[in-house]
């Protein structure tokens, strides 16, 4: 199981800014190990962010995203105390879900 995400969500005016750090190797599938064998691709494929249960961001990622990715985005709406939940699933089927409340 992957390490927890670090999530920050703050409301400014009529929009909310969400910043997420995820712990993941994001192996591109392009690298080789010391024996010359290709290291298989291993990366987060789907990311879904919900605000009080309603999806505000849904993304499909590929191998070009960096290791330990940082995701930052804004959406219209959101108020202090609302729940922000984030989940991802990688190409091996590993999952991780974390949530926070808007500060």
């Amino acid at each position, binding site marked *: 199981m992957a390490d927890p995400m670090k999530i920050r969500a703050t409301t400014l005016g009529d929009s909310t800014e969400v*910043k997420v750090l995820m712990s993941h190797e994001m192996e591109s599938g392009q690298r080789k190990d010391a024996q010359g064998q290709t290291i298989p691709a291993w990366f987060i494929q789907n990311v879904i962010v919900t605000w009080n249960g309603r999806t505000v961001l849904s993304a499909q990622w590929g191998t070009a995203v960096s290791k330990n990715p940082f995701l930052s985005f804004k959406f219209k709406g959101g108020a202090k105390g609302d729940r922000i939940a984030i989940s991802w699933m990688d190409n091996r089927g590993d999952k991780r879900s974390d949530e926070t409340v808007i500060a």
Partner: protein
Amino acid sequence: MKAVRSAVALAALAIAPSLLAQGSTADEIAKYRAALQDGNPAELWEGRGEALWKQQRGPKNVSLERCDLGLGAGVVKGAYAQLPRYFADADRVMDLETRLVWCMVTLQGYSEADAKKNPFGNGNDRKSDLEALTAYITSESRGVKMNVPMRHAKEAEAYRVGEKLFYFRGGTHDFACATCHSEEGKRIRLQDLPNLTTAEGAQKAYTTWPAYRVSQGELRTFEWRLYDCFRQQRFPELVFGSDAAIALTMFLARNANGAPFDAPAIKR
């Protein structure tokens, strides 16, 4: 007259980019760091380290929360800004990593070999507990002024040994730390090298380790920094937690006194 003036202007334009290049490289790297600072993955290590600190582990199944980092048992806030220091119970000057190993042995019952078998992590399969713990504890000193003590004779001795090591030339390349780090304006490729013989240089360097190295995707501690410098100057391998590692840390940490600690940082 007009033609002359525009020729002069052209000449000035031609010179400007090369004059700008040196300063702007450092500026651009600084901008790059600032852009990344917001989402510094070092926080992932801090989070894991905090959990490890509080978790009951080891043969004795206790947490590290009673570990004395120099300010009393369990005090984490500001502890790193006063390390390395002399610890009477161990009768030795210790840096943070060495002290953590000490606590893992004395409190949690690990063997010393087990406690320090993985000081530097490598990817998902070899995560280092010591790096995570170091990230957490150092993060609790952010903003605290460096105040490394030199009251005990052994602290003064460590400082002197560290200073000697810093200037000691050896290895296949007849290199010393000072070869790269005792002049202004030196660099490796595009990376400016701090002049560690000045207070300002030592402060800027010491207060920004540990750091998340983007190029490695890992959080690296100050012991790692020294270990890798030794490798780069073709010295014998620097043994983790050795007197040599602690003495060099003591020399640089003490020279950084007075500056606010500002890590875990993020570096290229």
